[in-house]
């Protein structure tokens, strides 16, 4: 092979391979557009006012809505936040501000481990922890499952954003004679506020769509479920049930529910990222 043809083939390989990487990117971006577009068009088309205000109609009848599932989702997410965020936040403060070597290492390691646990396994855990003991399915069990899922991300995002706060702020506060806890509560944590709030929002967006851990904790319910001790309907579980049903009208409602859920999640997600992008100590992200 002469030098010229070798060079030409090298350039050809160069162009083909670089072109391929571009093509792959276009394929992925295309899939993304298709997925979002399809959901928006199909979801918005099937959405009506009754969806937000009515209970599900009896099996086989058309019409009705998912008002109970919307309230149920809100209730369970509220409980999850109340369980997962405080523990995760305080744990994150420990790791960033107090942690000694070996104990902090263990906490960090197990937090990562917990983060990797499949959501269905978390569901089993919440089942054995709450449902087996109370002997009935409940909204609380669902909140527990999602709350457990929120802990790891809450820990790591709190730790990460606290670490991004310059040490000068801590030292300045301490040099004025402030006890450490006050320095943290009034100087360091407020400085990391944007990041921590973003972390909570992204966390919430992540668990809002979780279905698997709710299947055998909060179960489902076709009626209102007052309090936190009864089986409760949620949007993701309703989507699952309706999608696999044989009724066209239920499929229509599954799309509508998917649209509502996705809009909610994307809104939280995008606004969280916007808060993050204009915050001062964003951990270099």
């Amino acid at each position, binding site marked *: 092979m002469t030098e010229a043809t070798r060079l030409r083939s*090298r350039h050809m390989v*160069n162009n083909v391979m670089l072109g391929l*990487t*571009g093509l*792959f*990117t276009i*394929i*992925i971006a295309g*899939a*993304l557009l298709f*997925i979002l577009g399809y959901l928006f068009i199909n979801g918005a088309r099937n959405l009506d006012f009754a969806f937000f205000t009515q209970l599900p109609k009896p099996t086989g009848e058309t019409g009705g809505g998912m008002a109970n599932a919307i309230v149920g989702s809100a209730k369970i997410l509220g409980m999850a936040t109340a369980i997962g965020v*405080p*523990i995760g*936040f*305080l*744990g994150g403060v*420990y*790791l960033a*501000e*107090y942690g000694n070597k070996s104990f902090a290492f*263990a*906490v960090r390691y*197990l*937090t990562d*481990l917990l*983060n*990797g*646990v*499949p959501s*269905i*396994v978390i*569901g*089993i*855990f919440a089942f*054995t922890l709450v449902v087996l003991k109370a002997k009935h399915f409940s909204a609380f069990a669902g909140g527990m499952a999602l709350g*457990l899922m929120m802990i790891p*991300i809450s820990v*790591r*995002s709190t730790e990460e954003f606290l670490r991004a706060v310059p040490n000068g702020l801590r030292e300045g506060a*301490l040099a004025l*004679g*402030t*006890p*450490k*806890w*006050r320095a943290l509560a009034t100087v360091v944590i407020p400085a990391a506020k944007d990041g921590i709030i973003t*972390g909570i929002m*992204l966390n919430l967006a*992540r668990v809002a*769509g979780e*279905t*698997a851990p709710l*299947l*055998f904790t909060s*179960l489902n319910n076709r009626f209102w479920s007052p309090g936190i001790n009864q089986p409760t309907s949620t949007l993701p579980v309703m*989507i*699952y049930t309706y999608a696999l049903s044989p009724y066209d009208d239920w499929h229509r409602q*599954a799309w509508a529910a998917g649209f509502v859920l*996705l809009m909610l999640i994307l809104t939280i*997600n995008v606004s969280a990222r916007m808060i993050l992008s204009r915050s001062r100590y964003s951990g270099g992200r």
Partner: protein
Amino acid sequence: MHSSETLKVQGEARVPGTKRNPGARAFALRFFSGDEIARALVTISAALILLVTVLLVYELWINSHLAREKFGWHFLTTQVWDPNAGQFGALAFVFGTVVTSFVALLIAVPLGVGAAIFLSELAPPKLSNALTFCIELLAAVPSVIYGLLGVFVLMPLIKQYLHPVLKGTLGWTPLFSGPFYGPSMLVAGIVLAVMILPFIVSVSRQVLLAVPNDQREGALALGATKWESTWKVVVPFAQRGIYGSVFLALARSLGETMAVTMVIGNTPQIKASLFAPGYSIAAVIANEFTEATYDLYVHSLIELGLVLFALTIIINGLARLLVSSTAKFSVSST
């Protein structure tokens, strides 16, 4: 709170390298200034996280003891899953889980790494950031919605277009033989591929971006083409991180429940053909947990959960090891 004693103790406690005063008086002062309370509060929270994780393993272990004692290791090597006869074997589920995840990786790794190369090496930063932002949004879509799309969009599309093509060209191999009804391991694999793509792209891109520019410039200065410098210098440099992203994606797809449950067909069988329906570990737990009527049945399902837990923990551990050794960033928050 702002007395001079407090100040002194605070000062002592903060100066690096000095030992904390162990005296009871100093402790009382720290206590009343609130510091010991704050320390106790955060330490208890951290300990609670440890406790929760240990309790998770404990509960899975205890609540699967009937199945573990009755079947032992045969649980993993037998295929019969017959709740009526009280016989439980996980092999068909393990098979379905591994095959669908493998198909997903086969599709998602080349696509994802290719796109990551484009986004880190070729695309202008603004375009790259915007596209990455969008691709990461894909990761925010709940899995039940992927399941919905899989059932109503992907399945008909594959039936109409992809199946005839595969049947025509590769139909002679056992992999693509037999009839195609819709719910199958192939569809599950493709849905999983779409779901794990964002992780591969986002993590691989970050590791590629972390490769020092000297590496690229060095290769280009020696006369390498852009592709040669990327493929032979930059990618090997970031190799471990890319493997890490793949393992991360693998752990995700092994544990993925809803989307797979909705499209895999839920038939516990071991067939070579990807067109055949199958079943995965997570799917059988999701489907049968509330129907399990006696203890051994429940314990068998929880043992499946234990198997899944062990699998994902090992693979996640490998992923973290690989990623953290190349680039410093938090994988946990993506």
